[in-house]
C-alpha cells in the first residue's frame, strides 16, 4: 500500500519537475508559443477571417498578395488567408483526433494483451504485426479509399497507422508493471481485473505513450496534408492546407504565390509540435537529469 502511494506521490512530483525543466528550455517555449498561436488562430478563425472562406468571386481570382488579400486569392477567387485560418482547424483537429483515437484503441488492445497474456496476447500482437507490415502511408491510402473523404473517414484512416506501434509500447509497459508489487497487492485484495487495469496499470503506463504521441502528432499533420494532396483526405471546397497545395500545383508556372502560404503553415505547425515533442521527451528522460 505504501508502495502504491509512493509511486503516486512520485507521479505528481514528476509532473512538476517536468514542467520546471520545460520552462527552462528555449526550444520548448518556442514550440509551445507556435502551437498555442496556431491553435488560437484556428479557434478564432470565424471571428478573425477577413472574408468568408467559401465565398467565390471569379472577378478577383488568381490575384497575388495585396493589401486587401494578404495571401492573395485562389483560382476561384476565394481569400487565401481566410482559407488558411480555417484550414488550421482541419489540420489540427485531424491531427489530435487521429492520434487520440489511435492511442485509445491502442490502450485497449495493449492493456488487454499485456494484462491477460497467453493466446489473447498472441492473437492481438499477430494482428498488430499484420497492420505493421503495410507501410503507414499505404495503409492510410487504402483505408481512406475504402471509407471516403468525409472528415470522420480521414480521422479513422490516419488513426489506424498509429494503433500497432502504440499498442506495442503500452503492452511492454504493462508487462513490466504487471509484476510490480502494488498490482499484486491489489489482486490479493480481490480487486476486479477491470479495476486493476484502469486504476493502477494504465495511469502508470501512460508516460512513454504520451511521449510517443507528441511526435506522432507532428507526423499526423504531415500525413494529413499528404493524404489531402493526393486527393484522399479532406477535399475542396474544404480548405485543408494539403488540398490547397494540390490546387496550387496546377498554377505553379503561372501563379506560384499560391504555393507559398499553405506550405509555410504546414511546416510551421509541424515545427511547433516537433519542438514541443522533443522537449517533452528530453524533460521526461530520467538519464538527462544528472
Amino acid at each position, binding site marked *: 500500500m505504501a508502495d502504491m502511494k509512493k509511486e503516486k506521490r512520485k507521479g505528481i512530483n514528476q509532473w512538476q519537475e517536468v514542467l520546471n525543466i520545460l520552462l527552462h528550455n528555449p526550444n520548448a517555449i518556442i514550440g509551445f508559443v507556435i502551437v498555442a498561436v496556431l491553435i488560437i488562430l484556428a479557434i478564432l478563425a470565424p471571428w478573425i477571417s477577413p472574408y468568408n472562406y467559401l465565398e467565390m468571386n471569379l472577378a478577383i481570382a488568381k490575384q497575388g498578395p495585396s493589401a486587401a488579400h494578404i495571401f492573395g486569392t485562389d483560382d476561384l477567387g476565394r481569400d487565401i488567408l481566410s482559407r488558411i485560418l480555417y484550414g488550421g482547424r482541419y489540420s489540427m483537429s485531424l491531427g489530435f483526433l487521429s492520434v487520440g483515437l489511435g492511442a485509445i484503441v491502442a490502450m485497449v488492445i495493449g492493456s488487454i494483451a499485456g494484462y491477460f497474456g497467453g493466446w489473447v496476447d498472441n492473437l492481438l500482437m*499477430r*494482428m498488430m*504485426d*499484420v497492420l*505493421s*507490415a*503495410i*507501410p*503507414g*502511408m*499505404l495503409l492510410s*491510402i*487504402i*483505408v481512406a*479509399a*475504402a*471509407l*471516403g473523404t468525409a472528415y470522420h473517414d480521414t480521422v479513422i484512416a490516419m488513426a489506424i497507422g498509429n494503433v500497432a*506501434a502504440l499498442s*506495442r*509500447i503500452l*503492452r*511492454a509497459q504493462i508487462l513490466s508493471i504487471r509484476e510490480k508489487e502494488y498490482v499484486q497487492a491489489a489482486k490479493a485484495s480481490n480487486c476486479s481485473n477491470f479495476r486493476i487495469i484502469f486504476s493502477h496499470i494504465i495511469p502508470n503506463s501512460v508516460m512513454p505513450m504520451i511521449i510517443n504521441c507528441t511526435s506522432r502528432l*507532428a507526423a499526423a499533420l*504531415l500525413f494529413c*496534408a*499528404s493524404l489531402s*494532396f*493526393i*486527393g*484522399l483526405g479532406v477535399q475542396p471546397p474544404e480548405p485543408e492546407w*494539403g488540398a490547397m*497545395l494540390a490546387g*496550387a*500545383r496546377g498554377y*505553379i*508556372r503561372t501563379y*506560384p504565390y499560391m*504555393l507559398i502560404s*499553405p*506550405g509555410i503553415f*504546414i*511546416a*510551421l505547425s*509541424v*515545427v511547433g509540435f*516537433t*519542438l514541443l515533442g*522533443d522537449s517533452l521527451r528530453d524533460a521526461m528522460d530520467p*538519464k538527462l537529469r544528472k
Partner: protein
Amino acid sequence: MIPVILAVAILIFTIMTFVPGNPASLILGADATEEQILIKEHELGLDQPYVIRLGNFLKQTFVDFDFGRSYWTNTSVTEELMARFPRTLAIAGFAMLFTVIIGIPLGIFTAIHEGTFADRIGVLLCVIGVSMPTFWLAMLFVLLFALKLKLLPAQGMDGAKYFVLPVVAQSLGGISGMVRTARAAMLEVVRADYVTTARSKGLSERKVIYEHALPNAMLPIISVLSGQLANQLGGALVIEQVFSIPGIGLYLINAVNTRDYPVAQSSVVFLSILFSLIVLLTDLGYAAVDPIIRAQFVQGGTKKKKRKEENG
C-alpha cells in the same frame, strides 16, 4: 513472415470490397444499361460471393504468382508492377541511401560537438527539414530549378536527370530525421558509464568514440531504419504525383480512384511484401550487431520478440 503477408492480402482484399462504387458501371460509363453492367460484372467475376473471390485472389496471387489483370486496361498487373517498380525504387532507394550515408555521420558529428555553434545550427536546420512536407519542398524545387533557373526537368522520366529533383527533395527530409536520431543515440551513449570507464583506461578520445561509443549507438540507429524506409516509400508514392513519374504510386492512386481492384490490391500486397523483406533484413542486421540477441539466437529465439517490442 509468410502468414503475415497472407493476412495482409486478406485484409486488403476485404477492405477493397468495402470501397463504394461499382467498377463495372464506372468502366462502362454513365449511360450503360443494367444489362450491360451485369454482363460486365460477370466478366470481371464481381458477381461471385466474397469467399470465392477471396479464394481466387489468394490462389492467383500466391500460388500462380499472377497479380491478375487491370479492370480498365486489361493489361497484366504483374508486368506493369515490374515495369513501374524500378522507378519508385529509384526514388525511395536513393533517398534512403543518402539518408544513411549523409545522415548518420552528420548526426554523430553533431553529437560529438554538442553545444557548439555548428551543432545548434544543425539541430535547428534538422527540425525544419523534418517539418517540411516533401511534396511541398519538391514543388518549391520545381519552381526554382525547373521553372526559374531551367536547370533540371520538372516532369517525366527520360533519364537520370529527371530523378534528381525528386530524390533530393525526398532525401532532405530523411537526412534531417536521421541526423536527429543518430545524434540522440550518440548523445545517450556518450553519457553512459562504460564510456567513462573507457576514458579512465587512458584510451585516446578517438578510440573511446569509435570503438566504444559508436558501436553501441548503432543499435538504436539500425532499429529505426525500417521506420525511415516506410516513410521514404510513402513519400515516394506522393512525390510521383508532383513529378508525374509513372511509378507504383501513380498506379495505385489511380487504381484506387477508379476502383480498379486487381491493380490496387496487388500494388499494396507487392509493396507490403517488399517492405516486410526489408524489415526482416534490418532485424537481421540488428541481431548481427547486438551480441545479446546473437547469443539468444544460439539458445532460442524467444527473447528477440521482446526486444522488438521494447523498440517499437
